[in-house]
């Protein structure tokens, strides 16, 4: 194992994050605070409670997931797209490092950044709502797994993307709608039965549901399904990345 390579990539990528700390952290915190104000205070005051939880508190896990998913995908995709764009990828390709090590460096760095953002948003939420976390260890587990799996997904997007437009297309057109329609701001039991079934094809439902369970002890789908979904998604992403490095898809001529 070339652990030095993993470390070098990780340190290099984290240095970039800290160089742009203000824009990395401030903008997600600001936009989340706006959600709290709009959904929690303005609209939430007209919604009673969702399954015994105040609406303001109910949306916290969904809001954290929204930021974490979008941030994971965009951080990781940018992390590997940038070297491709400016040509420094030659160094990664000629290094004595396996696909696992290169991926680990980039994905761990992206996941660390989105985890930081997730925790900061969680901290921010305490200012707005009265919040209790029923299963803190599970909460962290779900958060970390989500950061990792969607950073892996972002890594794939970064390799697939051939221009900046494509790079932004997936977070914008795929991830955000999936999160909004994945029960971030409502319980899927509020939907008509047909739409409840359709929603079950949205992978984000399982993430949000499991994550919300770790806060309030209640979920839309069984906890086992949530864990299975996240593990399956992670395995799928690793499989695709393995295939990418094996065939050189869009990175090695």
């Amino acid at each position, binding site marked *: 194992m070339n652990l*030095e390579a993993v470390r*070098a*990539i990780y*340190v290099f990528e984290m240095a970039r994050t800290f*160089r742009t700390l203000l824009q990395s952290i401030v903008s997600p915190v600001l936009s989340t605070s706006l959600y709290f104000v709009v959904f929690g205070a303005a609209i939430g005051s007209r919604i009673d409670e969702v399954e015994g939880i105040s609406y303001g508190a109910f949306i916290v896990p969904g809001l954290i997931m929204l930021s974490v998913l979008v941030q994971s995908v965009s951080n990781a995709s940018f992390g590997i797209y940038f070297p491709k764009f400016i040509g*420094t990828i*030659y160094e990664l390709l000629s290094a004595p490092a396996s696909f696992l090590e290169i991926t680990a460096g980039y994905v761990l760095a992206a996941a660390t950044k989105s985890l930081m953002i997730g925790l900061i948003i969680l901290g921010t939420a305490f200012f707005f709502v009265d919040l209790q976390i029923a299963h803190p260890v599970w909460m962290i587990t779900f958060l970390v797994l989500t950061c990792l799996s969607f950073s892996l997904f972002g890594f794939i997007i970064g390799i697939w993307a051939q221009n900046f437009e494509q790079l932004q297309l997936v977070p914008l057109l795929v991830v955000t709608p999936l999160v909004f329609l994945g029960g971030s701001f409502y319980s899927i039991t509020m939907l008509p039965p047909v739409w409840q079934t359709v929603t079950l094809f949205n992978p984000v439902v399982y993430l949000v549901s499991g994550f919300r369970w770790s806060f309030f002890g209640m979920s839309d789908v069984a906890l086992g399904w949530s864990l299975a979904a996240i593990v399956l998604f992670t395995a799928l992403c690793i499989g695709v990345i393995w295939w990418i490095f094996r065939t050189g898809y869009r990175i*090695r*001529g």
Partner: protein
Amino acid sequence: MPAIVEIRDLQKTYDSGFTALKSIDLDIREGEILALLGPNGAGKTTLISAICGIVRQTAGHVTVGGHDTIAQYRGARRLIGLVPQEINLEPFEKVMNTVRFSRGLFGRPRDDAHIEKVLRQLSLWDKRDAKVIELSGGMKRRVLIAKALSHEPRVLFLDEPTAGVDVELRRDMWETVRKLQADGVTIILTTHYIEEAEAIADRIGIIAQGEILLVEKKAELMRRLGAKQMVIELQHPTERIPEQLAGYDLTLGKDGGSLVYTYDTQGERTGITKLLSDISAAGLQLRDVQTRQSSLEDIFTDIVRKDS
């Protein structure tokens, strides 16, 4: 000298169907400077890229220091430093950080003393905290070399190190390359400047259309293939070459004031003695005689033309 890089039947056909390398066989000896000389599109960069792992070879084998570049890529790549043709650098990174990154990527533990040595050797130490974007073109190229040397490679590939670089910087670069060779690094550089190959290479490989046409010691190459010309200046200009001299490879010089005789120094007989006596027999009077040897440029053009 033993070979540190062995290339056997290396082939590369891109997905587009373009065959960039037909079948390359080449041994690179430890400690030498080998110049790969060829026109644009000859396959120089593809050859380097295949050895370094940037493109996948279609067939063939390469070993570096005895390690197969595919089966034992870690062992092989640890020995290799690559300086690409394009200036591929992160613009907002500091020089020191980007060089340190390269060392780590190649599996070496952090060693700031070595990095300092490399940066000083390349006259970049004063710029260690400067961002790449603040540097001049020549400095950026040296940063690329510093990155390639950061993990103490034994073989250094320089892809067109002086393309688009002015004369003075080019001489600096040659000086740097010689110093590296003195440190024991084997150097392979590609170039389409013949004077560059002539100035610093120990051996020269000529590559065109995906094939290595020949690899020779520089001096041998020039001796073996060097055609010589003899210019015979005449007392009185002549309008045409006399019939008695038709059997010689002669051309008429400017205004008929001279005859130019081209001959091969490798030939058993140069035919000079007979030519000179035949010239006086034809009634021409000599004023002066001079010879000149073809440059590497003439040789190169000759080989590439013959091949195509």
